[in-house]
């Protein structure tokens, strides 16, 4: 963690005096919190939507993959990824994606293990991207994930600060 990040984390306070003295930092922190909430909400709703549609109990994901195969160039890497990895393991992937989205979404909204949640989100997005579902709308999500990993976002309107004080041995994950 850089000195700058540690400094921001230690110094930050919701007091009017701090906000007056650090208007730019405060704006950055507010934007960080806002985007963390929106990102978390996006993931949580996506996960809940998958549960409602029966991703955990039906073979819907298999149908999704089979349809995607009709839209991809058979010579592409994404086509091979779907055929050789995603299709055979679609029940497992259904669970990982659905549960992962819910857990990551809740983690980001509540600011619990925010860094680990961001790494989980990055993993899901990365596999979406290489599995034939890449589009430019993923780029802002990747950037936000990296920001949430670098900065102690969970300490700003989140439970990480509280948890860190109670479980200091967990270090970076809650820092």
């Amino acid at each position, binding site marked *: 963690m850089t000195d700058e990040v540690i400094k921001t984390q230690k110094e930050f306070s919701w007091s009017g005096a701090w906000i007056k003295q650090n208007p730019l930092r405060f704006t950055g922190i507010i934007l960080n919190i806002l985007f963390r909430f*929106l990102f978390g909400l*996006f993931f949580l709703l996506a996960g809940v939507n998958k549960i409602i549609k029966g991703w955990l109990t039906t073979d819907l994901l298999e*149908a*999704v993959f*089979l*349809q995607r*195969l*009709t*839209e*991809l*160039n*058979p010579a592409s890497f994404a086509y091979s990824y779907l*055929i*050789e*990895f995603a*299709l*055979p*393991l679609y029940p497992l992937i259904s669970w990982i994606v659905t549960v992962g989205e819910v857990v990551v979404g809740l983690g980001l909204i509540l600011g619990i293990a925010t860094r680990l949640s961001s790494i989980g989100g990055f993993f899901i997005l990365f596999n979406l991207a290489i599995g034939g*579902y*890449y*589009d*430019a*709308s993923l*780029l*802002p*999500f990747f950037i936000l994930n990296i920001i949430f990993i670098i900065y102690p976002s969970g300490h700003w309107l989140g439970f990480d600060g509280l948890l860190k004080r109670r479980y200091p041995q967990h270090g970076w994950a809650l820092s």
Partner: protein
Amino acid sequence: MTCWTRTITAWTFAASLFLYSPASIAVAQQPSDPLATPDWGDYPLLMSQFGELCTMCEAYVRCTPNADQEISSKLYYFKNKTFWGQVATIWFYFAKWFAPITNEGRPAAIYTFSPDSSAESMMPAEAYLDVAESKIEIGGTWIDRDTNTWFALDNTTLGQCVRLGIPESMKAIEDAAPWQIKAKMADATQ
């Protein structure tokens, strides 16, 4: 070999077995004829059980004129959304709770085929997919997404359209297109 090396080798071997045994099942799920038109189901043109033509999906629609029409048949190629169109889907996701998005534009290309099925020309175009009115506008014509009927903008019936699979469309263009059309195709897809 150290204990760690043996452990890693054993796990790699087990993981390979785990991944590749079901892989053979998936390969068997592929259509036997890759050039066959997929079954698109009973949905409006360019829609599926998962909704509107997706951001990164491409599609080909072939429109054939009725016998009384003296026009060439067309192959409409609907491309991925533009870069900013893709980024905007995040906004659309949140905005749809307040005002549903009912239409979208995306880049396209129009291949004109002569009666002997050789491609005569290819030109870039902009296509508009309208969910509310269930129509697609492209190149001075429009397609009814429910009946697949092809119309001129003055509502004269031109013919009928059908969605083709990507491999069969690419092959049709490759077979029919003279070299200069192929060069333009390469430019258009960059």
